[in-house]
Each structure stands twice: as C-alpha cells, then as structure tokens.
C-alpha cells in the first residue's frame, strides 16, 4: 500500500489527528490549538503543493500518487482539487481559532477536523456515488455537535437527520437506476427518473425551498458558531459535489431543461429566503435564512453555468465564508457578553449604545451578504444579476423582491439596534468597555478584509476560480 498519496495527507492524517484529539478533548485550549495548527498546516500545504504532485526537497525527489485504494474503491485527490482542499481546511482553521472563545462543545476541535477530512473524501471517492454514504456519516457525526451533552435532541435535529437520511438512498438509487444508460436518448423514462431522484436528493441535502424547514428549526436550537461551521462546510462541499455529478453524468447535464429547472429552484429558494428573512423575529434563525438565500444564489449560479454562473459561484466562496464568520462570531460574542439576550428581536433593542462595534459588525456582515457594492460578495452577485437581466425578464422581479426582503430585514435590524428600549437604563448606567480591544480589532479586520475583496477581487478572489478546474466536462474552457 502506497502511503505517499494525497488522500493520506489530506484525509487520513487529519482523521488520525482528530482521533488523537479525542484523548486530549478535556484540555479545551490544547485541543483547539492542535486543531487550529493542524488545519492551518494542511491548508497551507494544499495551497503551495505543486499541481503535478511532484517536488524536490533536500535533493530528493518526492512524487505523490493521487489515488489511494481502499476496499476496492478509490480515493482520488488530483492536483486540480488542491485549491478546494486548501479552502476547506482554511474554513476549519477560521472556525477553530475563534471557537476557543465561545462556550461550544469540547468535541468541536475533534469533530470539526474529522468533518473537514470527510467532506474532502466525498469529493475524492470513486465511484463518486459513494459520497452519499460518507455524507450520511458526516451528518451522524455532526449531531454530536448539534445536540450538546446533557440536552435532548430537538425537533430540528431530528428533522435534519430524517431529511439527510432520506436523501442518501435517493442519490444511491439514481446511480443504480441509470447504470449503463449513457447512450440512451435523453427522453428515456429512466433518465428522467434518475434526474428527479438526484435533484430531490440534493434539494434535501442543500435545504432547497420548500424542503428547508429543518434549517431554521436547527438554527434556533444550536449555538450559532457550531451551526455556521457545519452548514458552511456542508453547503460548500455539496455545491462542488453537485458540479461533480453534472460533470460526470453526461446524460444529466445534457438533459433538456435541466439548467432551467435549477434556475427556477434557485430563484424560488432565493425569494423564499428573502421574504422569510424580512419577517424574522428570532436572531438565531437569521443565519438559516441567510444560508437559504445563499443556497438560492448558488443553485441559480449552477443553473446559469453556461452564462458564466460557474465563475460567480467560485468567486463567492471566500467572501461568503467571511460574511458567515463575521455574523456568527459577532452573534456568539454578543450572546457571550450579554447572556440576557434571549434571541428575540426585542432583546436586541438599543444594543448599539452598549456594543457599538458588535452592532456595526452585524449590520456590515449582512450588507456584505446582501451584495452591497464595495463589499466582498458584490463582484459575484453582480455577475449573477447581470446574467439574469440578460437572460430573461421572468427572474428579475423575483430576485429584486428577494434583495428587497433582505434589505428590509437589515433596516429592521438596524432600527432595533439603534432604538433604545425604554425599560433599559441609559447607556451611561450600563457597564462601560464591554467590548475588548481584541474583539474590536477582529471585527474591524474582517470588515476591512471584506472591503478589500470587494474593491480588489482580481487579487483576492481570482485564485479561487481554480475551484472549477476539475470539472472539465461541464466547463471545457474553465
């Protein structure tokens, strides 16, 4: 067995490390720092690793194999996938480095590292349909974080488990159903059934409207830091997996109207997210609707893959992550500083006078996700808006309504944060300097980073266009 393979480094090594972390999980800080360092090293290694998987060190030539055979199945991580790997470990690093400050589960470092490795294995496993089984494994492991020790699993967790478990056989069945029918005409009933199964499976996985109900329920029950990590990883990896399906199944991508259906699914999800967000009164649920909106944008981008949607999808990964990070960090920090905030909107009244930097950070992260010019997500969203404006008039009012809904929510939120609650004491009577200098610096840094990405996307975001490189059939020129 050749151990000098890319899967050994980016799948088995982190899994091994997470197993070791089980031993030290009681040492909260130590395990967080090990997970941070491990993730960072793996991310940097993936970023600087040559695409040819060959390099010289101390006069010796090392050639890494991209395949690892296990149970007669292959785990293949090619050089073109290294950017994706770097990105996922970067997410793990970002969530672990700040997770130390929040009262999340002790198992967070251990499980986060394992989850990251498993998500990478979903992108590496061949035949790729087996990814469905690994996704199910990830879901089962995630529930450990979603249901903190000593607490009963809520209805959101149960529904999450149900929907993700139902998705798995749908994906597996589709593969079984259409085996060997690549040459069949696209109108073949088997192909249509296979397509429906795949789309339904991914809709359940990605929480596409109207199969999204578990998402806000779960968000309400879970710590925002844990929730954001799990679903960020899930969504980012599943979008790439969906691209993999479209890339590998010629019958799927050549099916007449498939991209049109995805466009509609994206627009409707986006619309549902925007409208539901505008009416939201629970702060913990907000992230769920933000994820729903971003899912809508991403499905729309995949639907517009022939109109440049792929680029928009690739450009949106990092700014979206930073916006999620900023939102969930700020919210977790607010809940840590002010435990009396019960998650209702009214409990946030006048927060600006008490935590001005946190309040501004909440607003700016939302503005970033809205696609405000000058912030990180603008270049990608502008591409999508321009594409749909060029394509058809049908989507424009729906997308505009979704954007308006989100803008309305931001203004409501701003109004709540700025308007003092008449029952709370005036600011002078509240505890001064509740925001530490470190927190202020972190929040300012992420705002600045978002600004830099929005103004210099060609510097900060272009490297991530490489995420599309593995999909040579779907995007022949990419």
């Amino acid at each position: 067995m050749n151990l000098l393979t890319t899967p050994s480094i980016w799948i088995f090594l982190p899994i091994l490390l997470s197993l070791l972390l089980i031993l030290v999980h009681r040492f909260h800080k130590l395990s967080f720092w090990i997970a941070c360092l491990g993730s960072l090293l793996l991310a940097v290694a993936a970023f600087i690793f040559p695409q040819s998987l060959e390099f010289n060190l101390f006069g010796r030539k090392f050639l890494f194999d991209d395949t690892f055979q296990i149970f007669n199945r292959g785990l293949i991580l090619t050089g073109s996938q290294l950017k994706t790997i770097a990105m996922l470990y970067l997410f793990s690093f970002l969530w672990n480095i700040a997770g130390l400050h929040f009262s999340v589960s002790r198992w967070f470092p251990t499980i986060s590292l394992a989850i990251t490795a498993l998500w990478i294995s979903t992108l590496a496993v061949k035949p790729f349909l087996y990814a469905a089984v690994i996704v199910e494994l990830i879901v089962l492991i995630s529930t450990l974080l979603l249901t903190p020790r000593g607490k009963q699993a809520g209805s959101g967790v149960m529904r999450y488990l149900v929907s993700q478990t139902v998705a798995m056989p749908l994906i597996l069945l589709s593969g079984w159903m259409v085996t060997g029918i690549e040459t069949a005409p696209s109108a073949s009933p088997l192909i249509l059934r296979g397509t429906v199964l795949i789309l339904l499976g991914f809709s359940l996985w990605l929480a596409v409207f109207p199969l999204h109900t578990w998402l806000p329920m779960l968000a309400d029950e879970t710590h925002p830091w844990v929730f954001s990590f799990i679903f960020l990883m899930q969504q980012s990896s599943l979008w790439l997996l969906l691209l993999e399906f479209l890339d590998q199944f010629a019958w799927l991508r050549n099916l007449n109207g498939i991209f049109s259906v995805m466009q509609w699914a994206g627009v409707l999800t986006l619309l549902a997210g925007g409208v539901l967000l505008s009416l939201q009164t629970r702060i913990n649920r907000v992230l769920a609707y933000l994820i729903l909106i971003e899912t809508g944008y991403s499905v729309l981008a995949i639907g517009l893959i022939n109109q440049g949607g792929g680029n928009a999808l690739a450009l949106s990964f990092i700014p979206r992550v930073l916006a999620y990070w900023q939102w969930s960090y700020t919210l977790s920090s607010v809940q840590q500083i002010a435990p009396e905030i019960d998650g209702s909107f009214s409990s946030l009244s006048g927060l600006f006078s008490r935590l001005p930097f946190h309040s501004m950070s909440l607003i700016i992260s939302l503005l970033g996700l809205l696609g405000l010019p000058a912030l990180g997500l603008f270049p990608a969203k502008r591409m999508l808006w321009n594409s749909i404006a060029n394509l058809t008039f049908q989507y424009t009012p729906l997308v505009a309504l979704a954007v308006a809904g989100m803008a309305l929510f931001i203004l409501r939120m701003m109004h709540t944060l700025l308007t003092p609650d008449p029952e709370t004491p005036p600011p002078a009577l509240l505890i001064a300097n509740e925001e530490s200098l470190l927190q202020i610096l972190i929040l300012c840094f992420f705002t600045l980073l978002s600004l830099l990405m929005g103004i210099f996307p060609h510097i900060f975001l272009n490297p991530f266009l490489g995420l599309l490189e593995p999909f040579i059939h779907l995007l022949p020129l990419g």
Partner: protein
Amino acid sequence: MILLGIVGLLWLPSIAMTISQAIKPNFARSWFIAIAGASLALLGAFFLRLYLPLEVEFIRWLPESLYHTTISFRIDYINWHYMLAILALCIAVILTDSSRASTQANPTTWAAALALTGLNLISVMSKDPLTMAISWAVTDVVELVYVLTFSRNSGSTNKVTTIYGVRLISTFVLVAATAVGWQVTAGLDFTQIPPTASLLFLFAAGLRLGVLPLNFPMQNTLELKRGTDLLLRFSPVASALVLIAHLPSEILVLNQSLVSIISILTVLAALYASAMWLTRADANEGRPYWVVALSAFALQSALNGQPQNSRVWGLALLLTGGVLFLFDPPIRRIRFIPLLGLIGLLGFPYTLAASGWSAILGDPVSFASIMMILCHAMLVGGYLRYILEANSTVTGLEKYARITYPLGLILLVQTMLVLNLVGWSGVLTVGIWWGSLASLGLVLLGGLLTKQLGLRLTSTDFKEKVPFYRLGHRILNVLRVVFSLDWFYAMARWFFARLSNAEDFFRQVLEGEAGVLWSLFFLLVIATLIYTQVGQP
C-alpha cells in the same frame, strides 16, 4: 495620478491631524493643517481646469472578459465645478466653524470634514456608474458610522434608519440601472448610458436627492446643523447631481407618458419644497426643503433634455445654499455677503445660473414652466427673508474669527464668480432673461404685499392678516401629510403585520408534526407549476 493626489491632500492631513491630536493636542496646529491641506487641494483642482478632460484608471479587474470593470475617475466639464464647489465648501466650513461658539468645533470634526470631502470627491469624479455605486456605498457606511458616533448619546437616531434605507435603495437602483445599461454596452461609462437605462439612473439620483419619491433625506436634529454636518448632508447630494448631469439628453425618446408622470411629480416636489422653504421659521429648519427644491430643478432639467445644464442648479444648491447655511451667527453688519450669494441663484443674464433657465422652462413654455418660475421666486423670497431677518449682533468674537468667519463666506461667493467666468464654455450667456425677471417680479410683488399687510411669520395676528390663510394652510398641511409618507409607512406596517401573521401560520404548519409532508406537497405544487408553465425538462 493628479486626481488621486488631490484626494490625498485631504486624507493625509486628516490622518496627520488625528495622529497629532492623539500625541500632543494643539487646536491651532490642527486648524492650520486642515486649512493648508484643503487649500492646496482647491488650488490643485483649480489648475486642473487647464487640462480638462482628465482620466485616471485606478484599478482594472482582470481578466477583462470576466469582469468588464475598471475603477476609474474622470474630470471633465460636467463634474469639475462640482469638485471645486465641494472643496470650497470644505474650506468655508473649517473657516467658519472655528468662530462658532454654538457648535463643538474641534480638530476631530475638521479631520472628519477633510475625510468626508475626499470620499465625496471620489464619488463626484467617478467615470462610470459602477465606480459611483461603490463610492456611494462606502460614503453611506462612513456617514452612518459618523452620525451614529456623533449622536449616539443624544437619542437622535430615529431617522437614521430611514435615511440609510433610502440611500441603500438608491445604490441598488444604480446597480440595477448599470445592469440594464450593460445589456447594450458591457462595462459602460457615463458617456455611454443608453436611453433605455436613463430613467433608472434618473430614479437612482432622484431617490438619493429626495425628489423621486419625495422624501427628506436629511436629519435636521439640533446637533446636525452646521459645520462639518453641512458637508455630511451635502455629500450624497453632490454626487447624485453629477449623475443627473451625466444622463443622455435623449431621455425624452422614452415612454412619453412615463416621462410626463415623472415630470409632474418633480414639479409637485419642487412646489411643495419651495413653499415649505419660504414659510419655515429659520433657514436651518428649511434646509431639507432647499435641497429637495433645487434637486427637483436639476431633475426637471434632465427631463427637459438638458441634463448638463442641471449643474447650474446643483451649484446653486451647494454654493448659494452653503453661504446661507454657514451664515451663523447671522451678524447683521455682514449680511451683504450672503446677499451676494444670490448671484448663483437668480439667473440674471451673464451670471452663473443664466443657462439654467432654458433647462427648467423647457421648450415650448408650458404650465410646468410657470410653476417652476413660481418655485424659483419662492426660493429667492425665502432666501431673502432669512437674511433680512438676521439681526444678531455678536460681541466677544475672537480676533481671528472676525477675519475667518467672513472669509469663509466670501470664499464661496468668489467660487461662484470664478465659475461664472471659467466654469465651462458658454457659461456667459444671456439665457432666458425674462425667467429671472419674472421670478424677481414675483418676489418684489410678494415683498410689497407682505409689507403692505404688515406680515411677519412670527407675529400673533399673522393668520388674520393673510388672505385665504386657512385655505392655504390646509392645502399645505394636506401636502405635508401626503409627502411626509407617514401614510405609506403606516400602510407598510399594516401589510407587514398581515404578512407576519401569514408567515407565522405557514411556519407552524411547516415546522409542525406534519411539516415534512407539507413540504413535499408544496414541492409537488411548485414542480407542477413549473412543469406546466416552463415545460417538461
């Protein structure tokens, strides 16, 4: 790079002042740094007149085929004078601020004034709509932070959300207009705006200016009245006026009835705002109406197919308005200085505003033209009223303030005179001379009537003396209620409450025991709808 150098001349002193104040506070040194930086920038901008048009590409998003975007700036005969006006206003603010005991003049506010002016210049110099959208977004967020920092302890943040909301919408309308424009020319700049997108651009500017639909995008709280805050309030206005001036003159080739409706709304906004301006207790109370009325003039110019001439009214808004609003304390002895400011508004032949008459009156002269003359008369009347009612005699003014205070006001008047000579080719024109004559005639008539009837707004028998007072008052009140948009907000709240109830019901259904089945049912409904509407995949 000279354009960016001018912005640097504002931002570097701003940073220097902030640092020097933190290390070793010194009022005089900070004042000097601020004045020196702003004056150098003004001089630099003035010399740019010799090299117009001038372009600089700041950032090019590569690959070109992916983004079609450059962040670039351009100074030409459309925006150069706005640049000069903003810089003059900045210096005037710093000069007059130090002599005002009622406001907290301090180096921090001057540093903010310089920084905000720099940001504002970026917006004004934008070569294309996307650069402008980015600069609008940044300016709005900076302004929001500034306002919140400034007024967080005063409890005067009620209108902040509404104002920011309007700005946010205008930014997104600008982005939408750009998307429409890109369908014709990818990566278009202001010289390539197609007529099909021009109404959206006009709407973006109108929204920001508070004209379309009528809203008053300015705070008028006690602490946000003069000095730096005047810059803060005029910032979004200046860049929106530049956008109007960039619009193509073929706007009328679009849907005629739509243009007519917008024109009617604009005239109504101008009428209402100028009537309100005339009847306020003092100039500061009337400031939002001044902005809206003259912005409506600029919009009407664009609707009449002369967007470039809208600059005349834009400059009147900034410079003439600047003189009046900075005339605080209103010292009786020097009230001739703000009176000189009328040069920029009256529109006499061979004055700055002369070329603006043809733009607002249109061709042929219509009922709207007459209304615009009436609006102009009310603006001039109000302006005169606020100056003539100034009767303050200030004692104990610092020695330096006796020079700097009038100097600040004179600088603005001088800027008007300079622009009157070298602003753009054809600035020295007769224009429609009878327009200004008619307006002035109306003002004199109004003045005579007021004197004859012995009217004073503050007197107790005012109501009895004014003919048809009750009718006029009632009409104005109705208009105020309509234009305050309170009814709209109430309706929106009602609708929002109903929608919330519906959402709550659906949430309970979807998140209840049978939620998964309901989700599948909705999925089937949607799939069927798409299947029947779009067709089989």
